[in-house]
């Protein structure tokens, strides 16, 4: 009887411990997204239970943009100077504003012939952050609703919320990274929409662990 009780007690404590380890941490910062999109994820670490329970929320569940024929054009024309940012990172109005001002694209001239420009604009619009384009795109849409057509992904609430813990000496003060707009410096899968927080390697500093 006593042994049974001890076993039951140990099991209860064990299960509770597992449950606590696998549960979400709520960070007290100014940005409080809807609970479903909790930025610090489930599970916390790389342990067995974390891997079992965590939600891979930082890769695109919706893959249509990756197999869209126009994506090659987008990469060719818009990937020469920077990573061709996944369209789901900004709402359609932002892409429209960007494509309408290519002659002064963040201080550069990135003009395109009208036909190419139109095709790329359509591609971006079709896969932009919006309620209909899958989990991630919807999240970005939700995060940018309060802003008037943000042009910089790095200025969106969602982006800031995801990166506010990174010391600036690892990014803007780091000659191998230099800017938050250089996603690929820390996210090897950025071009394909893979920003999994567990695969972050900051150039010059190594793996980033939350």
């Amino acid at each position: 009887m006593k042994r049974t009780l001890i076993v039951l007690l140990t099991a209860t404590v064990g299960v509770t411990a597992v449950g606590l380890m696998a549960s979400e941490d709520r960070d007290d910062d100014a940005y409080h997204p809807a609970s479903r999109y909790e930025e610090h994820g489930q599970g916390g670490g790389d342990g067995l239970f974390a891997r079992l329970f965590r939600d891979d929320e930082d890769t695109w569940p919706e893959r249509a943009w990756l197999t869209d024929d126009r994506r090659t054009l987008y990469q060719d024309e818009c990937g020469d100077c920077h990573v061709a940012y996944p369209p789901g990172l900004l709402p359609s109005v932002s892409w429209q504003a960007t494509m309408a001002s290519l002659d002064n694209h963040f201080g550069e001239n990135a003009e395109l012939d009208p036909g190419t420009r139109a095709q790329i604009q359509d591609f971006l619009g079709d896969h932009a952050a919006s309620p209909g384009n899958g989990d991630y795109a919807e999240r970005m849409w939700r995060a940018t609703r309060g802003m008037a057509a943000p042009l910089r992904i790095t200025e969106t609430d969602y982006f800031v919320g995801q990166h506010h813990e990174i010391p600036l000496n690892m990014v803007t003060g780091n000659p191998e990274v230099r800017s938050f707009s250089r996603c690929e410096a820390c996210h090897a899968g950025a071009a394909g929409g893979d920003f999994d927080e567990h695969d972050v390697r900051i150039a010059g500093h190594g793996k980033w662990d939350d």
Partner: protein
Amino acid sequence: MMKHLIALATMVAVFQSAPLLADAGKELLAEYATITSGPFDAERGRQLWLQENPSPDGPPRTCASCHTEDPRQPGAHPVTGKNIAPLAPAANPERLRDRREIEKWLGRNCKWTLGRACTAREKGDVLTYLLSL
């Protein structure tokens, strides 16, 4: 015997590919020549390459800002850090093979560097300079 065969095959391959070197660039040169008067000049092209032009923000702008003073060297975008392969076909046989690419970049980069579109003469001079390296 095998070594000679390989050497011969290589020479044949190189000889066959030589006419393709910078083919689009040469084609455009011929077109620019019909619009301008007088021959193009590689030295003028080089000076245009190095010329410092006023900038609305930041340091003076030149072709060298991204491509370095020697087009045979790799360059980098000063803001994004993106690597830029050498522009001289002699250093990079991929260059000046796509007409659309040449026109696109001359369009963008003349406007950024000089603040206006390049004239046909200027484009011809720069291409001639790149081909002379």
